């Protein structure tokens, strides 16, 4: 089997942290996949993402989400970060692990804006599919993931994989 799905970096938080950043991401892959699994310290919060430390109003999202009783869709434009979750915001309950799988396509090109798909899950609160846009033509070299408030707990895991088209 060709080695086209390669671990770039992984961490299990040893202590609570307000964010986690993958830095110095090589441009040798075609696409990226980020997998996160965990919960947060106090009060349920949505999980957000920024690229290359950009805090400008360059992010937008479209969300399709379900709470278990309501199906809904929402949009955000010109945000300073992008959502990775909507109804599947992360919980403070140790038994209630949440999961996010993010696919970031063509992340290293320097011609087009960058898009991604997030599939977020927390079985006690909701299921989400989100698409996001970062309006920058820069290659993505760092990715920061953070809760809208509060901290990730120790034991939360983050893994980043590179996928090669050839």
């Amino acid at each position, binding site marked *: 089997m060709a080695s086209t799905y390669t671990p770039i970096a992984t961490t299990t938080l040893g202590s609570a942290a307000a964010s986690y950043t993958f830095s110095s991401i090589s441009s040798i892959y075609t696409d990226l996949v980020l997998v996160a699994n965990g919960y947060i310290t106090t009060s349920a919060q949505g999980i957000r993402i920024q690229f290359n430390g950009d805090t400008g109003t360059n992010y937008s999202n479209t969300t399709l989400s379900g709470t*278990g009783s309501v199906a809904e869709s929402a949009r955000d434009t010109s945000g300073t970060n992008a959502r990775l979750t909507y109804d599947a915001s992360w919980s403070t309950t140790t038994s209630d692990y949440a999961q996010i799988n993010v696919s970031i396509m063509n992340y290293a090109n320097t011609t087009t804006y960058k898009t991604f798909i997030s599939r977020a899950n927390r079985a006690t609160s909701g299921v989400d599919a989100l698409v996001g846009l970062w309006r920058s033509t820069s290659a993505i070299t760092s990715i920061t993931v953070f809760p809208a408030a509060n901290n990730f707990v120790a034991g939360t895991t983050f893994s980043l994989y590179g996928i090669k088209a050839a």
Partner: protein
Amino acid sequence: MANTYTKIASVSVGSGGAATIDFSSIPTTYTDLLIKVSSRTSATGVAENLLVKFNNSSATFSNKTLRGSGSAAVSYSFTTNGFGGFLNAATSTSSTFGNTEIYIPNYAGSTNKSFSSDSVTENNATEAYALLAAGLWSTTTAINQITLYSDSSGTIQQYSTATLYGISNS
């Protein structure tokens, strides 16, 4: 370069169908598991639930589901069994099989196990579904066995396939 996306096992259902698709003795050497399923059931109707057991248990599962039919989107909860997705059923267009992908992070860890499921049951007819699901198995035991089966006592039909992959982060 590390080979981190590895086939662990694959099942192809033969003549006569099968009550279950089983992956057993799953090693703990990977970080995450991914199951890709193409399946159809003998159960009545156009589509049916694809259920899942971990370690032969159907208890302590919870789920939130978002389902689109082509004309409406609905969301509902599912707690009576492990919900793994959807598969085409007996009255769907012949030779059409549901497509499901289940991702299980940290399956060998000591925390409760979350998992996601994406399914489609497209069959070029009036009734078809796209489905996203969030699942949780509230058990801290490492997953060493996964069983897939049809709701409503359906038999999984010949030519159904399932492949289990292990993904390593190092």
